[in-house]
């Protein structure tokens, strides 16, 4: 008796999206597959890409990150120039949280200046994240879009600010990360709204909101699976690469609390907390991961899966 085939085939493909690099850098292309992740079947032209977050607000670093960042933590550009090649990051996610009133309150001009300096210092593809304050971001994104000397992705557009992001992106040739709060219908809706603005679909990534391990990761896991299954089944608005930012993993007490003796070394535990979050996202179908710990860029970046 012969066991039947276990291969699961799909009628559609995920749209390939390219994050452009600077001169002498390697661009990153994700998407293009017609299969579920991490399986030796179907057609999967691009492996998932893992990037490193570059932070402008480094208050309250968990012990694991403080150890990994060392003295470079304070200067985002020096940090990126040293760490990105060392850990093998394929792209960088510059978080402008330092422009948030509670995160250091740097000015919009300073934020734009950091973007300019970073892009001049490294050839990697770059995603620029806003600070999360609606009022500041309304000025920050247009300033960043104008200041960036080469195409980047802006993160993120939601159903409220999508016009602003799409406008800034289209005026200067950038891409946009479309964010939705763990909600497949909202993910689709934001992509429809962005499509209505005329932003080309190959310049859009889906960010489904990544809950950290122990704090909602299961919702993210299932939303990514549903987005991916819908995309591969022919829903073009959901057939887009998915980006997971693992930063929430570090908000867990378990990732940063050194006081619990029975939980093991907090330096190892913090890194593992983010790594486990990342593997679950990859297993669900994520195409891009953003890590805070450089060692996790290396671990998740494919040693185990290449």
């Amino acid at each position, binding site marked *: 008796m012969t066991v039947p085939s276990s291969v699961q085939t799909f009628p559609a493909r995920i749209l390939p999206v390219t994050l452009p690099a600077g001169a002498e850098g390697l661009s990153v292309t994700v998407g293009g597959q017609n299969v579920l992740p991490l399986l030796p079947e179907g057609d999967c032209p691009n492996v998932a890409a893992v990037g490193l977050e570059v932070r402008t607000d480094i208050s309250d670093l968990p012990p694991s990150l403080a150890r990994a960042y060392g003295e470079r933590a304070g200067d985002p550009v020096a940090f990126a120039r040293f760490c990105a090649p060392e850990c093998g990051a394929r792209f960088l996610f510059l978080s402008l949280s330092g422009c*948030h009133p509670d995160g250091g309150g740097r000015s919009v001009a300073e934020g734009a200046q950091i973007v300019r300096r970073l892009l001049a210092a490294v050839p990697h593809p770059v995603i620029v994240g806003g600070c999360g304050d609606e009022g500041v971001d309304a000025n920050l994104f247009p300033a960043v879009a104008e200041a960036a000397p080469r195409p980047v992705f802006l993160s993120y557009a939601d159903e409220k600010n999508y016009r602003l992001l799409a406008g800034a992106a289209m005026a200067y040739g950038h891409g946009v990360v479309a964010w939705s709060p763990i909600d497949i219908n909202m993910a689709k809706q934001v992509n429809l709204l962005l499509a209505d603005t005329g932003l080309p679909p190959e310049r859009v990534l889906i960010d489904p909101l990544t809950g950290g391990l122990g*704090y909602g990761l299961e919702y993210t*896991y*299932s939303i990514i699976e549903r987005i991916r299954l819908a995309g591969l089944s022919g*829903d073009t608005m959901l057939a887009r690469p998915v980006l997971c930012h693992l930063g929430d993993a570090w908000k867990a007490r378990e990732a940063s609390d050194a006081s619990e003796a029975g939980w093991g070394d907090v330096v190892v535990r913090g890194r593992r907390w983010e790594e486990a979050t990342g593997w679950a996202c990859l297993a669900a179908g994520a195409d891009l991961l953003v890590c805070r710990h450089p060692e996790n860029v290396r671990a998740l970046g494919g040693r*185990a*899966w290449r």
Partner: protein
Amino acid sequence: MPAPRKREGAWGAGLALTALDVYKLLPKTNCRDCGFPTCLAFAMQLAAGKAGIDKCPTASQEARDALGKAAAPPLPRVTVGTGDSCVTLGDEVVLYRHEKTFYHPTAIAVSVNDALGDDAFRARLAAIRALAFERVGQRLAVDLVALRCGSGDPDRYAMAAAAALAVTGKPLVLVAPCEALAAAAHRVAPSRPVLSPPPDEVEAGARLAASLGLPMIVKARGIPGLESALASARGAGARDLVADPSARTAPEAVAASVAIRRLAIVRRAAEIAYPTAFDLGGDFPAAFAAAAVLIPKYGSLLILDTADPADVFPLLTLRQNVFTDPQRPIQVEPGIYPIGAPAASSPVIVTTNFSLTFFTVRSDIEASKVPAHLLIADCDGMSVLTAWAAGKFTAESIAKTLAESGVAGAVGHRTLILPGMVARLSGRIEELSHWRVLVGPQESSALPGYLRRLPPDAFTPVHG
């Protein structure tokens, strides 16, 4: 424009027979002895899994067999251990947790080697026993101890098995050649260990498992190898089998795990439909990565060599997440939760008892470094907007929570911070409760800044 949400069908859960198939097997007398008005109505209940064929007194043996086979879980259940420490492997019905749920959490075994010296052996067992953690009101712990036979000495191995069982109270995975396996299995058989003989001793191991009525892990390379090894284990009389595809890398392990689960659920390929086991010890590369992917990707039993809580705690938490029923989110107990070390003048913040809402708000309050009383209202585990829309998070229910929680005794003021999403409730809450309401931010993530900017006189005590 809602996206499709598939629940049943070719890749989902469902009885292998349709209502019409079932109807053809019934007596078609409409005798009503089953409690349903017609045989067709009864057939529909059977096909939906909501009734059993035993309710029909006149069903033929053929019908009973056919329905019994169709109702059997596509992935059989294997139990290891007894009583409170019994571990269930397999017995799953879907490929994706959003289709229904995953029922039986991936069992985690941590290994110990009988070649260790006495002190090191005891210390290792103590370390395994200590791998237990409290999260969200649940206890997370390693389920089994995998005893490796490094000594090659059956007597030593049997004694080690007895000691491991006595010290940890956890069921055992006995990983050993058959001679040692037999010595240990006879010694601890009542505790229902699972036997794991080497791949070249599958038949001898299966005879041992059959004679003692114990479950067994069948090891062979890949799906074709497993198919014939499982057949010979069945031929030797073993019944409760677990399939170990003997993968050497994480990608191989995940590919085999997914293949077996799909063959079981979708193809109903009974000859390969077994719970799976993966030994990630020894020189298995990137064992943590393999474990972290095999937990959501259908691994039934994982053997780890690491007993470091910094490795095991994240994996147990991942397991807790993945095996949470997606249709019944974990709820937290309604009540007052102190965050930081709140005083009588600390803010009172109300939200719902949806666990994700609770943990998000709690972590944002912690981030603010402003101690506070977090008041959790009973909303059947819904988030703020969902609960409001469902009429569970209303001015009336919030006023009732304020009154019944006893929070008035914990603080000197009468000021409540309300989620910004339900700002419209504030007036009515003030009327009903006589508390002053401050409208908090729309998003929990804005709480740190909001709390730090609160005027110091917002929570002055009330008198009289």
